[in-house]
C-alpha cells in the first residue's frame, strides 16, 4: 500500500485527470465546438454587413485624364492609377472601337489581369480566370464577381475616366 502511494506523484493527487478525457473529444464537446464555429461565422457576416453599410468604398469622383486617343491603338491597353489612390486600372481600346476601363485586379485573388487582343477577353494568368472585355463579367474560371469598371469619356482626342453614376 505504501509503495503504491509512492508511485503516484503528489501533483496527480492534487490535480487528478483522466487520460481518456484529455486525449479524446467527446461528441458533446464537438457539438459545442460546432456552435462556437457557428457564432464565429455569424460574427463574420455581421462584420461584412456593418462594413458595407457604414463604411462603403469611396466612389471615384470627378473626371481623370488617362491618355490621348492616338496613344492607344486598337487592341491596345494602358495601365493607370487615379490621383490619390493606389488601385491599378486598365484602359482597353476594343476592336469595335469602344474604350473600356476596369480595375486591373482579378476578383478572385487580386492578381493583375491582362487584355488578350483579338479575343475580346481579359485573362487572369494566376488561375486561368477570364472576363468579358465588353462588360467585365466573369465568364470562366474561379473569379466570383465581375471586374469593377469605370466610365470612359472621350473628349476630342483626350480620354477621361470617372465613376459610374450611383443609380446605374
Amino acid at each position, binding site marked *: 500500500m505504501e509503495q503504491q502511494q509512492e508511485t503516484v506523484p503528489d501533483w496527480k493527487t492534487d490535480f487528478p485527470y483522466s487520460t481518456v478525457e484529455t486525449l479524446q473529444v467527446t*461528441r*458533446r464537446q*464537438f*457539438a*459545442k465546438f*460546432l*456552435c462556437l*464555429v*457557428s*457564432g464565429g*461565422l*455569424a460574427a*463574420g*457576416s*455581421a462584420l*461584412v*454587413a456593418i*462594413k*458595407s*453599410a457604414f463604411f*462603403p*468604398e469611396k466612389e471615384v469622383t470627378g473626371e481623370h485624364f488617362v491618355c490621348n486617343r492616338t496613344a492607344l491603338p486598337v487592341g491596345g491597353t494602358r495601365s493607370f492609377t487615379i490621383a490619390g489612390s493606389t488601385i491599378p486600372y486598365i484602359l482597353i481600346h476594343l476592336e469595335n472601337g469602344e474604350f473600356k476601363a476596369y480595375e486591373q485586379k482579378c*476578383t478572385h485573388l487580386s492578381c493583375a489581369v491582362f487584355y488578350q487582343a483579338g479575343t475580346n477577353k481579359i485573362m487572369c494568368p494566376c488561375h486561368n480566370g477570364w472576363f468579358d472585355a465588353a462588360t467585365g463579367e466573369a465568364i470562366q474560371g474561379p473569379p*466570383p*464577381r*465581375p471586374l469593377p469598371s469605370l466610365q470612359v469619356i472621350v473628349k476630342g482626342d483626350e480620354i477621361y475616366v470617372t465613376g459610374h453614376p450611383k443609380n446605374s
Partner: protein
Amino acid sequence: MSNFRSAQDKAHPNKSSTLMLAIITLLILIVALQIWLLYTGLNNALTQHADVALIACIVSVLLFVAAVGLLYFLPGKRR
C-alpha cells in the same frame, strides 16, 4: 415530478446516441449554410449590394441562435 431532462437521462443509451448524432448533423448543416451565407454576403458587399449582405447577416445570426438552442437538447453526460 418527471420532466424532459429526467426522462432523457433515463432513456436507453441507443436513443441518446441517435439524438446526439441528429444534433451534430443539424449543427454541421447550420455551419455549412452559414459558410455559404458569409461567402454570398461578402461577394455582394464587394459589388456594392449592402442589402444582400445585411439579409445574409440576419439569417446567419438566426441560425446561430438555432444552433445554441439545439445545445439544450444535448443528452447529459453518461453516469
